[in-house]
């Protein structure tokens, strides 16, 4: 094999992004496809609804029967978050490959922060894609009030996706099984909060607190990473 052409060497940050991209790209493409697929289904369903019913009746059903025509999206962000976390960190956990990254000449905190940010950003992009897609579809058929209602209803599900990612990563990196179970229980208990509502706008008054809660759950990964790095077994 000839020596590859002298390409510009990657910077450490880009190299890390490159590594994470290699692991999660298929998940992201899959997430994109699934999101597109579900959004297409929703759009087609709306088209049929408006074709076969009076537009007034369809709006009435949405507004007063409180029918969530996007209910299929409910668990998709969570699934994407969890699968992204698995795709990113299962290869790191097998044979404790994460030690390779911890031996790199970068700070432990910076490493974990970068890896997690990459995953969260990927999750964020797919979430924004879902949000934008839903907003577009809703805007096609409904007025601004219903678009806003759909967005504010989707928001806790998106937050659950990011928390699902943080939960997966934190649990996977943690080296001790008992602590993994504890973490799983805590995160599962908190994620349930995001699915307590079944109608539109249920989280209108509290979404700010749930954003803070989601942000807080991104931190414990540093503890798990530190414990992994130091080889704790209790």
């Amino acid at each position: 094999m000839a020596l590859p052409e002298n390409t510009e060497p990657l910077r450490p940050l880009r190299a890390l992004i490159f590594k994470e991209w290699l692991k999660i790209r298929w998940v992201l493409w899959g997430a994109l496809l699934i999101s597109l697929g579900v959004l297409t289904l929703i759009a087609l369903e709306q088209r049929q609804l408006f074709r076969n019913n009076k537009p007034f009746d369809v709006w009435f059903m949405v507004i007063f029967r409180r029918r969530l025509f996007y209910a299929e999206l409910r668990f998709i962000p969570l699934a994407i978050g969890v699968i992204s976390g698995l795709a990113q960190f299962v290869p790191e956990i097998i044979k404790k490959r994460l030690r390779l990254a911890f031996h790199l000449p970068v700070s432990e905190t910076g490493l974990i922060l970068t890896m997690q940010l990459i995953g969260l950003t990927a999750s964020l992009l797919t979430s924004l894609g879902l949000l934008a897609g839903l907003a577009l579809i809703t805007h096609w058929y409904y007025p601004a009030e219903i678009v806003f209602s759909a967005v504010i209803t989707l928001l806790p599900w998106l937050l659950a996706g990011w928390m699902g990612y943080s939960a997966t990563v934190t649990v996977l990196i943690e080296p001790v099984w008992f602590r993994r179970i504890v973490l799983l229980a805590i995160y599962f208990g908190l994620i349930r909060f995001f699915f307590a509502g079944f109608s539109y706008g249920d989280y209108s008054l509290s979404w700010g607190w749930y954003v803070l809660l989601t942000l807080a759950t991104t931190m414990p990964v540093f503890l798990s990473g530190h414990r992994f790095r130091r080889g704790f077994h209790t």
Partner: protein
Amino acid sequence: MIVRLARHLLILLTMLAASFYLPEFYWQLFYKKPIATRITHSIIQDDFLITRTDTQGTTTYWTTQGQSLTRREYIQNNPFLFYSQLQRWGIAPDSVKGYPMRDFSNRIHTMSLRFDPRETAIAQIPLYPLLESAGEYITLSFPDDFFRIRQRLEFISPVDRSIVDSLTIRFSDALDAAGFQYPAQSIYGNPTTHKIFDEGYYVVDQAGRLWHLKKVDGKPFIQLIELPAGCQVQSLQVIEHPIRQIRAALLTRERDYYFILWDDYRPVRLPLDRAPGRPGTVSIYLDPFGCQLLHNRENSTTCYLLDRDYRLLKSHTETWTPRHETLAGRVYGALFPYSCQIRSADDRYIHLTLRLNGWPALIGIAVALLATLLARRYYPALRRSPIAELGWVAVGGLYGFIALLLIPPDPED
């Protein structure tokens, strides 16, 4: 330092989760639902009758003197309420206290409904169908548009989301002329065609004034309702009943209940208890002799008997031990310094709040602190925890103790 911060955040999250689930589990294990109590006023006995249903579904009937009644007796003493049943038994009276029962119909001569302020405390997409109140057909029908009140009253067509200019201009001009201040704070109505007639909506404008809005022969009908000074509407239920005595029941932010009377829109304050705590639900029952209000609160139910002018004649209250005053409740109060709640008894939103349990929790905190100090002797991991971390237990009681046990400091800390 970031690792330490991460651990403390994890402790906080553990305490948050514990403060939601542990109280829930506790009540599932130890809570006994109180006996459901209902009070009606018997026109026959001129006394209140009490119905008690236990957790097994067994119902007993009592007078205020403690005399028990059979179910049949109870029904016979409430002829307006159970007229159809009495007819079935063939013992329906010809008159009740002089009121002829020949053409009596529950549907027309009595009204029974429940006013729950919580039902309107919900996220609502602010688009409403304004039905025609004086249509040519007996059955009501929906219009072809929805209205919203932003900087004007707009009618939108669901066909193409365009503004219906003719209606918009007509109604907005009428509201402007009446002095309505945009936008609307809240809009209350009953958007259904399954009723005998439609009375439109009650709208609270930006200045907090209450308006009645409906469409009559395609034209706007607007009526300002003069509430007492300082009253702010918290919740309102539109009443569209053939009895045509009350237009709406409302609850103000000051915890007063009002009826808006049919004929002259006069607000009548109801003599319901303003004691602190949740406002509770009000069951309203009108019959030819007056009005009964059943006010259900957390640990009491009161039946108010009002005359036809809604003046209080008498009342009767049944109380039960509130949950927090039972033995299980007292232990709860000591054990859990607070609980995380995502639901509220005041509305149907999802929240994330902490509800403090008061001074008895100090007992639980003291016990938890003792338990933590003991655990430090026998649990090596906890011994690494600096004394300052007892602060978690001082703040979180049992939750802090559990969190420290589950997330002890690591050897390096």
